[in-house]
């Protein structure tokens, strides 16, 4: 097995990883990007709808178009790319990274690693929905790849569980493909995705959205034959007597993404809510040589954000590799009221600027975000589907960095 020494090794070639590798290489680091798929792009390649890049490129692009631009930036940066290369192991001792590809096994000895492997979808079984186990039950991402990358039709009559943006976009995609979308079920009393997507993906096509509903049971022994939908109460418990059967040969699940931490979870501390590694404002984890960016840190809505975080992580990793990133005093960010996802997990006082991202648990109006009593931002409408982004810099950042801990909360004004 050959061993290669590099400055920065980036794992994952989605938006975050491409941005990280390009930024690290631009900083002059000898950089290698590893992607297990045959192509770079990650989930962008399967998102053929427009809605990408409004911030980064001030244009509305499709996923593949956005990926194409990022690949060009990566090409220009001089980073080296290996595709078809799956990382098998990250040994904290060294660190050393073991990789397999059709060309054989390789070992890398990087000075810094950027973890950018994205998120995985919560599988059907995780919901513990009773009933049979027929074919025809897909996660949204799998259905999307079958349809948009392979040109295969997952089914003819579909029910969608989960009204996050991915579920909504799949509803429209399937409808346009001639699939009868019978309903979109959402267990919460409000839609999970953006209002714009509820209108453009469901209402415009007359697809019913059943709020406070879930799947109570799955039917069919070989192929799916139908599901029982049921209304739930405020504790998400099914209300007896509200069951109704919906005939369908396909059930598409959009019930959440989970940051992928498989190879690092024994090495670095994770944030219990984000479910990704705890990072500081430079996207450095609590293991100094390990940086992380994108959906493997927390699930972000916009690829523009992911790309920006990737750049930050790549540039920080390059500086760390040069020995220019001395450790600072960590100041934890602590969740106060009404905060679920929260990135970063701590500030370390050495960055000139940082950005904070947070999510509220339910729709709220006329609220303000309070960051350690130093920064206060009014938010007229806060929705779980839209991350709130707050820049931290200048005096405010210095003041925050002096504290013992920073409580972040969302409260009525």
């Amino acid at each position, binding site marked *: 097995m050959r061993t290669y020494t590099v400055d920065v090794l980036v794992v994952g070639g989605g938006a975050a990883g491409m941005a990280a590798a390009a930024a690290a290489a631009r900083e002059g680091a000898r950089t290698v990007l590893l992607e297990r798929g045959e192509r770079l792009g990650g989930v962008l390649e399967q998102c053929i709808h427009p809605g990408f890049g409004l911030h980064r490129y001030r244009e509305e692009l499709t996923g593949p178009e956005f990926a194409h631009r990022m690949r060009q930036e990566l090409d220009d940066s001089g980073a080296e790319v290996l595709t078809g290369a799956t990382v098998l192991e990250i040994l904290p001792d060294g660190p050393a990274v073991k990789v397999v590809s059709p060309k054989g*096994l390789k070992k890398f000895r990087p000075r810094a690693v950027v973890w950018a492997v994205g998120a995985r979808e919560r599988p059907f079984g995780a919901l513990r929905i009773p009933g049979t186990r027929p074919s025809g039950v897909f996660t949204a991402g*799998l259905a999307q790849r*079958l349809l948009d990358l392979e040109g295969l039709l997952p089914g003819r009559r579909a029910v969608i569980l989960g009204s996050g943006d991915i579920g909504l976009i799949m509803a429209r995609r399937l409808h346009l493909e001639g699939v009868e979308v019978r309903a979109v079920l959402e267990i919460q009393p409000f839609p999970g995705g953006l209002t714009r997507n509820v209108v453009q993906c469901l209402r415009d096509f007359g697809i019913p959205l059943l709020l406070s509903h879930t799947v109570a049971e799955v039917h069919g*022994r070989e192929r799916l034959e139908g599901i029982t939908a049921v209304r739930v109460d405020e504790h998400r418990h099914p209300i007896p007597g509200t069951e109704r059967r919906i005939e369908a040969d396909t059930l598409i699940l959009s019930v959440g993404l989970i940051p992928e931490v498989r190879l690092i979870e024994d090495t670095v501390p994770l944030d219990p809510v984000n479910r990704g590694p705890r990072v500081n404002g430079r996207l450095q984890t609590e293991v100094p040589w390990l940086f992380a960016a994108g959906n493997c840190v927390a699930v972000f809505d916009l690829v523009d954000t992911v790309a920006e975080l990737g750049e930050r992580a790549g540039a920080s990793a390059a500086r760390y590799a040069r020995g220019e990133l001395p450790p600072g005093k960590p100041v934890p960010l602590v969740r106060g009221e009404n905060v679920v996802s929260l990135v970063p997990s701590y500030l370390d006082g050495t960055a000139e600027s940082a950005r904070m991202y947070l999510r509220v648990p339910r729709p709220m109006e006329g609220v303000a975000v309070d960051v350690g009593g130093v920064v206060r931002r009014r938010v007229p409408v806060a929705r779980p589907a839209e991350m709130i982004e707050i820049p931290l810099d200048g005096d405010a950042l210095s003041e925050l960095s002096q504290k013992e801990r920073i409580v972040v909360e969302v409260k009525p004004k």
Partner: protein
Amino acid sequence: MRIAVIGAGAVGSLIARELCRYEAEVVLFERAPDVGWGVTKANSGIVHAGFHDEPGTTRARFCAAGNALYPELATDLEIPFRRTGAYVLAFTTEELSVLEELREWGEVNGVPGLELHRREEILAREPRVNPEVRAGLWSPTVGITLPWEIAIAAVENALDNGLELHLGEPVVGIEVSGGRVRAVRTDKGRYPVEAVVNAAGLFADHIAQMAGLEGPALHPRRGEYVLLDETTGGLVNVVLFPAPTQVSKGILVLPTVDGGLLLGPNAHDLPPDAREATETTREGLEEVIEGAVHLVPDLPLHKTVKTFAGLRPESPQKDFVLGETEVAGFYQAAAMRSPGLTAAPAIARWLAHEIALAHGLEERTDFRPVRKRIPHPADLPEAEWEALIRKDPRWGRIVCFCNRVTEGEIVEAIRRGARTLDGVKFRTRAGFGRCQGGFCTDRILEILARELGAEPWEVTARGGASRIVLGEARP
């Protein structure tokens, strides 16, 4: 002489393999499109020690004997088998007396190494056990295995020794005349035979009726399970049983050979005609979780990847029905409730020997007992993995990321007989991990279609109408 074995579960497959040790033509009929998809597919996968079975029963006779054969079987067939040991846990005074009784049964049944352990000893070994535990019966010989892998491996080995395998071919009749078996009829033809072994699992009573016999009357008893992902197995290292009840061994917590944790099963009797009723129920899954949490309070239930259910073939006698019958040449291996999987190797060896004696069959000198499993390069030394990749780069292409299954393994599984997504899954464990096929189903589908020369929409999950995609998208 030609012998038909009906049913390619763990029991029928091992019997077919044992019969191949003798000078006979062995034909195995299975109605499903693949082997091991009946009761063998959904159970706890425990190789029991033999203390749960009342002395004097056929179960007791074959359980400890089967357990003793597992190391040899696992070596010859290269199937996963690990002696984890087990605790039966007691929380009340009545349960303490149950442990005493189990220990006595075990000693009569010839179960080695049983010991009563105190609370401290149990918690030192398994710190996650409910601290309210009072004592436990420790049984070092209990093990875990992959049940369907036994059927797959036994059939592969039997094929290597001359077995004739008929998949997707249900037996629909048995011709008996003059008190003797003459032929087996399937939906495809008539096969003259001199002996028949009924190992049809949940349907063994139907097969017996075809031969004009009465029993055993079978009904399904459902057991539901919750499976936690492959990062949870280290939380509990031994099989944990509660004190058993009259009905069953109770709801357990056990590590799986793939590194996950399995919770279950409950036990609910179903009407005799509900033989396909492997659906799970809300109440059932709640019951399973409640039972499991009683043994191990802080289970990471958010790491659930799957729920499923299996059906036990129960008879009023609560015991296996084995051996010869009033119809000459008709043998049974029926009513194989738990511990049928454990007992199977011992039953197979004994029954094949009985048949050989009765029919004067010579032992073959050229029987090859060894079957090689599909290599799983992620578990091999690096040099061996690199050698595989040099021969064929597909051994370096990971398809299932959770379980690190390569394209090479999937192609090999298809070469060995996988025709469906489940066929590939059960042979390679691709799609069995925490993403449950979310990342690899499309790639396995593509490989299956390519290797079988089929269109993707012709490929099924498990035969019949279980197609994965239904056609082409609009051009």
